[in-house]
């Protein structure tokens, strides 16, 4: 039991040590040239406009939700694709039901204009 925890402790120490040692070496090796631009928020090149602390369009969340649904679907489809030869028709029917449920949800969201940007 205690050996098991020892493994974890060693792993944790190595993980923390790796970061600290590398940052320390980098600090010794790199030149230091402070510049106010370096402290800006990085937004793929363009200059940031305004504060990030503001209301976002609620549509973002709907998109995110729909995205997660299909991400999960994909995650389930991979193991299914690997196993379905052994399980056979049962697996096909089961997956069809699963996909149909998700499709119904998407259809509902579509008709409620959840994926149209206004």
């Amino acid at each position: 039991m205690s050996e098991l925890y020892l493994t974890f402790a060693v792993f944790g120490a190595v993980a923390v040590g790796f970061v600290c040692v590398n940052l320390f070496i980098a600090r010794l090796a790199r030149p230091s040239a402070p510049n106010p631009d370096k402290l800006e928020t990085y937004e793929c090149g363009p200059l940031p406009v305004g504060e990030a602390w503001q209301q976002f369009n609620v549509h973002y969340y709907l998109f995110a939700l729909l995205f997660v649904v299909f991400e999960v679907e994909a995650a389930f489809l991979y193991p299914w694709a690997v196993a379905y030869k052994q399980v056979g028709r049962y697996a096909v029917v089961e997956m069809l039901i699963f996909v149909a449920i998700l499709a119904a949800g998407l259809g509902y969201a579509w008709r409620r204009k959840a994926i149209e940007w206004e």
Partner: protein
Amino acid sequence: MPDKSVIIGDMQAILPMIVLWVTASVIALGDVSLWKRGNKAINPLLAIVGVLVAFKFLVNTPRVASGATAFAKSLAIDPLGQISGIALLVTAVLSILLAWTYLKNRGLDHAEYYVLLLLSLTGAMMMASANDLIVLFLGLEILSFGLYVMAGFARTEERSEEASVKYFLLGAFGSAFLLYGIALVYGATQSTNLEQIRATLSSSSGAPGPMLLAGIGLLIVGLGFKAAIVPFHQWTPDVYEGAPTAATAYMAGAAKIGAFAAMLRVFGALTPVAASWLPAIQILAIVTMVFGNLLAVTQTNVKRLLAYSSIAHAGYLLVAIAALPSETVNGIASNAPDLAVGGALFYLFAYVFMTLGAFGVLVYLSSKGRDVQHVNDLRGLAKREPAAAYAMMFFMLSLGGIPPTMGFMGKWQIFYAAVTGQQIMLAIVMALTSAMAVYYYLRVVWVMCFEETTEAAAPEPVARTGAMAAIMLAAAATIVFGIAPNLLNAITGMGP
């Protein structure tokens, strides 16, 4: 590929839930494509038909003695699950009737309400027949997600939003406790299956270790949150007050049945280590009964009053839980556990009829610009609306536990179970606090019958048939099953 008979058996076990889920999907999709938000009456009608079909399937499921399971032992097919399922479907029918009236009169008539109601009902039914802690948790979450949204269904009202957010945050908190408890119990017993847990616990000797104790403690906290037990009840009055009245009624019924069916199962499985959790349940029961009733006395808002009353009723139901482990009394085998389960189920039925009926009267009186929830709104109701007022009187008498109503029979059964199980202290506290409760229930009756109305006659609400039907059904049940409790046992197949 699994055996065909196994698949068929599994599907039969969840057939009522499948029916509910399919109905919800049909309403959601039909509303956006077929009847295009035009014909509003079709949504509640479809919902009621779905619930009745589910009821038919549930009643037709062969009655097997406890022990039968489905889905690799994760669902139990037993009387407890089936009878609480019936109670849930009754709750759903009454709530749909109430929602029909309330949503229309308040301008909230959207199909999504019925969809959410049916889906959360599916979760509650899963919870009631869960034989595995993970399935129990899953059912609880499905139930809760629907309830969170329904509490905030009046989107333009700040109170409703507040209720929804409060319920969601505290509910998520409770779920986290429950999940942590499940993890620790799993750590201590190497299983999440309730039967397996019971077997492991009864075969192991010696005092339960700290991990198991912590796990049981967290389970009590988590389920206590959902069942609104003092001191985990703080959200109840605010959520009950803020949520649309029809949603409050459903929440009061479904969440309570789900939570207590789950508690009966979980603590039934934990019976071998009862010595470690029984004192906690006893103290919680006493505190819940005393504080629930004391705090209700000062309420002037009927919804808050009913919220505290529902807390007090949770306390009475905890007395039944405390009688669960009394499998032997003074070395002689006792039937206290069976009495406790039967009493709790009967009480849940009584609770559903009287609480939903009382909320139904509020729904019946509410109209577009006027959400009735203050005691003063009921002044002189006996003259203005005699039918609703007399029905309300029966609900209040029943909630107070006065014969010949159903509330009295339910209390009597739990009381009897507690005495048989040697929980004399709890039985005494129960009797005393019930007497205290009569005061605030009768005050509502007093206001209705003997005080004059001060306000001008309110405009007649647009639709009231649904609410009236629900009130009459509930009132009839409260009286008929109060006089002939065996009738309910005969209908549901409950009892010995």
